[in-house]
């Protein structure tokens, strides 16, 4: 897979930032509007996969070493489980939502009943959304990249 024509490459590099912004929006507003870590991460990964198809897996593999990609992925996973351990630290129970109601980050509680709420609500939830979002973006992209790269090398029993 050594990439497509020039037109496809330029168009995909133009569109990619919009997909990225939309995906990050879905991750960031997971606790307000429908969405969250998994769904937003999948949107961003679809943008990255578009870049992979447009520019070819050999070029992308050269650009992004797969080793430090899996570094990011374990980073996202560690953030998620650290949030759970912090729950054990502050809230005395594993996975406790210790930020709700506290005046710390994301602490406020929205008005009950239907209505708009600012992003500063939801306690641990937005942080978990970011951690899972980062993990899904990097994880799914590594799967797509490794499979595309491995099936593109033709030298038989590798």
């Amino acid at each position: 897979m050594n990439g497509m024509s020039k037109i496809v490459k330029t168009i995909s590099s133009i569109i990619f930032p919009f997909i990225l912004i939309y995906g990050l929006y879905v991750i960031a507003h997971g606790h307000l509007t429908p969405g969250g870590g998994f769904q937003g991460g999948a949107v961003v990964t679809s943008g990255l996969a578009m870049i992979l198809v447009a520019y070819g897996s050999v070029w992308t593999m050269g650009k992004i070493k797969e080793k430090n990609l899996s570094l990011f992925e374990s980073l996202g996973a560690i953030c998620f489980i650290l949030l759970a351990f912090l729950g054990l630290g502050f809230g005395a129970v594993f996975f406790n939502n210790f930020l709700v109601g506290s005046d710390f980050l994301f602490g406020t509680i929205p008005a009950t009943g239907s209505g708009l709420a600012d992003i500063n609500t939801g306690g641990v939830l937005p942080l978990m959304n970011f951690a899972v979002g980062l993990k899904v973006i990097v994880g799914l992209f590594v799967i797509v990249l490794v499979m595309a790269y491995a099936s593109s090398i033709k030298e038989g029993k590798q």
Partner: protein
Amino acid sequence: MNIVDAVLAHSPALIVAVPLIGAFLTPLVSRLNDKLRNIFVILVLGLTSSLVLLLASDIFTKATQGLPSIHRYVFGSQDLALPVVRILFEVDGMSIFMAIISAILALMAVIYSWAFMKENTGLDKYYTLILLMTAGMLGMELTGDMFNFFVFLEITSISSCALIAFWTHKGEAVDAAFKYIVISAIGALFVLFAVALLYGQYNALNIAVLANAIQYTFLDKIALVLLIVALAMKAGIVPMHMWLPDAYGRAPSSVTLILIGATQASLYGVFRVCFTLYGGVFNSLVITSNTIGWVIATLAIITILMGVTMALRQSDFKRLIAYAAVAEIGYMLLGVGTRLASTYINDYGQITFPAYGATALTGSIFHIMNDALDVGLLFLVAGAIYYATKETSLNRMGGLARNMKYTSIFFIIGLLAVSGMPPMNGFASKLLIYESTYQLNPILAIIAILASIMLLAVFVKVFHSAFMGPALPKFKNVKEVSKSMLIAMGVIAAIIIVFGLFPNLVVENIVRPAADALIQHSSYITHVLGGI
């Protein structure tokens, strides 16, 4: 010493969280250097095993003194509101008993694979997957929530499938892994379908709440059948055991050791579904529990005979041990089948089961631990031979006892233990199963004993062809395997001998509380719904 109490209070969550955070950290640690990563993984699993033993000692001491001994841990908030909304771990005697097996097997596998895996590549992913598989097994055994059980079942299946395909240059390993993942995926999806059926009817996912709410409607029968078939498929019970010899035979030996733990975790799932989730139903309807008991007993006899006869015909070392493992699962089922088939209505009109029913269940649960250790030791010996001679088929081996002294001693111990000979632990548990099945129906017990002797014959043949005989020229420079493999095999052999010499010590204060915990279906429920 409130630190120990605090750790004990949080230990159900830590037992699963420590291997998980270890697995997430392994890629980072292995970026520094390999030796540090091996030490880090052994430390993580050592910490997990000590947490499991700490929790087990607390549960079993309380159980033997008759105090309520179920640990309940709610994730997310301390108090437990009545429509159970959060996930909670419910650790009773049976689940911590299985967790001990999984933790010990994982620790031994990691120590064994320090030297066994030295010349392979991709080791940081290998150790990450081993830690994830351990976390999956422990989560399966400790959880009190049906959907959580499905999630951990899936973690165990995916990580064990990737580990079976570790030697990708050998085509059969990848094929065995594909067979394993197809069967696991279908089994897990049927478990999810059954959980959805139960959720659709009772709007609850917690095992205790469901066990209390189940009225054995037509849909519950379908959910029960789906659950038992799917989990039996994963536990390698006869009609669906095709994947087991390939998976056990093709995977590296250290992976097979943990795979035995994963298979027995699915067997634990079958027990939990039969005795706790549908426990109320089985206790109330004598006819169904008798018929199901007889079905499981005949299935067990078929498993034993199938395992032993196939083991006779194998020429590959590991496939032969894999078929012996299938036969051993038959003995566990025989104990459970006898227990269920022996229920009767006594003259007061209550449902009770005779004394030999209790010994049958105790024997089969004790046999789970014994079998894990015995078959595990045999697989480690097979791995040691493969490591030293790169040879797996028995026809091309011979005279290895000369230069692999310790491995042959461990093989003798494993050989006696698997076929249930007196000094070893296999004898203790099989004796319990024989004497109870004999009282139910003598023919079953006689077939079981004969099959066990045939198993002995099989392994003596293997011992002769692999270890005795003339020294083959091509094994001239074969030297003994390195230290870390011997340590792992030595520890397992030591546990086997200790359990074999003092069986009643182990049965009285570990196995009996586990068996009682499984049977006390009502105390499991009141511990959640009673809100104690």
